[in-house]
């Protein structure tokens, strides 16, 4: 009884204090959970900075106090060309994806086209195709037309990861553009193409950036097409570089982890730039959200 009356005597300000305190407690707990879940990432960064004699020490060296950039130097000298390759391929994929997806999304979102829904369903289904099936058959097809070990071949293959996703994402985005806007342009005498280019594209800039960033990231991270459609004779993307690096018996762990950190940078940038849309992107723009 004493406690309840004490509670009743608390002023509203005191009660607010309790709520505030409790929410800071939640923040502390949240930070604790996060540090457990993200510990592997810290461990990657830590290893990338440790000098090689401290890497295999027991007990482990928890902080890179004697940090060195030697790992990064070896990463750039051995994996640098692979990073460049991945950049070229990813930019190609972004271009192909946006050129195909933006007009298609415009038609699906704004021009109420017959057959639009079936096409959206097809795009949803093809996203679910197991990658290994695509790799298996694209290898067969590309072999016949000389696109194995070829930048264009890899760009086209990687674009299959991004195009359906980008169309669905942009379609959701362009649904949000008031139809009055494009109708007004039409009344002013603009053609459909002009309306698309001068009204829809500028208004959808954020959506296009998000779709482009995801296209970049999807092809940057691609390993399956990279390992099946290149032989390493002429060029090799970074994911394959890391895979072969891991496979070496005498693994140079700080070089490998430095490479892994470098290969993670696009993901980190994406998270910073497109934070608001990443969550929407998780569902593949699949559903009406």
């Amino acid at each position: 009884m004493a406690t309840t009356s004490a509670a009743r005597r608390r002023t509203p300000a005191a009660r607010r204090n309790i709520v505030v305190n409790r929410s800071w407690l939640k923040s502390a707990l949240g930070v604790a959970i996060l540090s457990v879940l993200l510990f592997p990432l810290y461990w990657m960064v830590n290893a990338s900075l440790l000098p090689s004699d401290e890497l295999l020490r027991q007990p482990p060296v928890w902080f890179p106090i004697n940090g060195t950039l030697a790992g990064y130097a070896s990463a750039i000298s051995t994996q640098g060309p692979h990073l460049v390759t991945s950049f070229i391929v990813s930019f190609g994929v972004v271009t192909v994806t946006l050129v195909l997806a933006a007009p298609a999304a415009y038609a699906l979102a704004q021009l109420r086209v017959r057959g639009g829904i079936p096409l959206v369903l097809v795009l949803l289904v093809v996203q679910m195709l197991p990658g290994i099936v695509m790799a298996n058959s694209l290898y067969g097809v590309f072999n016949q037309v000389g696109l194995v070990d070829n930048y264009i071949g890899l760009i086209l293959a990687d674009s299959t990861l991004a195009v359906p996703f980008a169309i669905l994402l942009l379609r959701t985005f362009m649904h949000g553009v008031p139809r009055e806007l494009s109708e007004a342009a039409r009344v002013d005498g603009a053609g459909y193409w002009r309306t698309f280019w001068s009204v829809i594209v500028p208004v959808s800039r954020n959506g296009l950036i998000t779709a482009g960033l995801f296209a970049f990231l999807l092809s940057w991270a691609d390993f399956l097409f990279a390992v099946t459609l290149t032989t390493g004779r002429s060029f090799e993307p970074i994911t394959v570089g890391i895979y072969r690096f891991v496979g070496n018996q005498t693994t140079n762990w700080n070089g490998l982890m430095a490479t892994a950190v470098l290969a993670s940078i696009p993901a980190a940038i994406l998270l910073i730039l497109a934070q608001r849309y990443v969550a929407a992107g998780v569902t593949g723009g699949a559903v009406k959200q």
Partner: protein
Amino acid sequence: MTSTQALPAPPTQSRRGGRPRPPRRSRTGLGRPWVALGFLLPTILYVVAFFGYPIYYNLSMSLRDFTVRSFYTGEAPFVGLDNYTAVISDPVFGQTVLNTVLFTVGSLFFQFVIGLALAVFFRHNFPLSGLLRSLLLLPWLLPLVVSGALWKWILAQDYGVLNQTLEGLALVSSPVPWLTSTEWALISVTLVNVWIGIPFNMVILYGGLQAIPESLYEAAFLDGAGPWQAFRNVTLPLLRPVIAVVLMLGLVYTIKVFDVIMVLTGGGPAQASETLTTWSYALSFDEFAFGQGAAVGNLLIVVALVFALIYLRSVRRSMKEEQ
């Protein structure tokens, strides 16, 4: 169906969803469909060339004796279902199917439970909650090969931090061969895949939770429900459609996991962590039995398709409402 409507609204979505629009006649009469087709045509051709044809090609490959030579000579004799019988009667097949099921069920279960717990934890905003939530997405955004490589370092038998910690705490007497023993390999790759999949589950479930009206919880608490009862009787039933979406998408994505297993174990040792996906790869690109690789791939398609269709049914309803 309400399933997908319960998902979060992206920032651009206007509120026009529910309002029925009066049918509007295009000023150009029949012009519009053809114009729309012009915008869609490149994509339609692309889908046919890069999805339709490969699916057909894969099917055709699986019915032929397709070897490396076939690529150069163009000769690949038709053998009917021989590849399928060869694959199914292979002693590896049973093990691989079992591995795939264990890997998928184990991944889904733990991803989902942890993801749901985190979603509930983040349901109400608190200081830093937005920042923490977006940082949690990092494991999901990293290239899978990177995640595989860094876990290979953590799980390394002699100098990996996990074994060193376990030994330091005297929880194990000798280092656990996480990736190199047949007993542990599948468990280890599943563990890593759980870590990768938690953010995906959390984000979608978090969105679902946001759509549950706060008033329902207030009513439940007024009726004397505790937090657990509120969770069981308010959260779970209302979240069910979203849960279904998460699990179906999760399943479709998990059976095709390739990168993580390839980097961590390559499907070994002795096929202890081989799934249908990695086996299909091994058949085609290690043994050059492309017909058999394609056959395994087609079995995977069938599984994915069944669940994809269930998923599509719910999406289609919500799209009809939207139009």
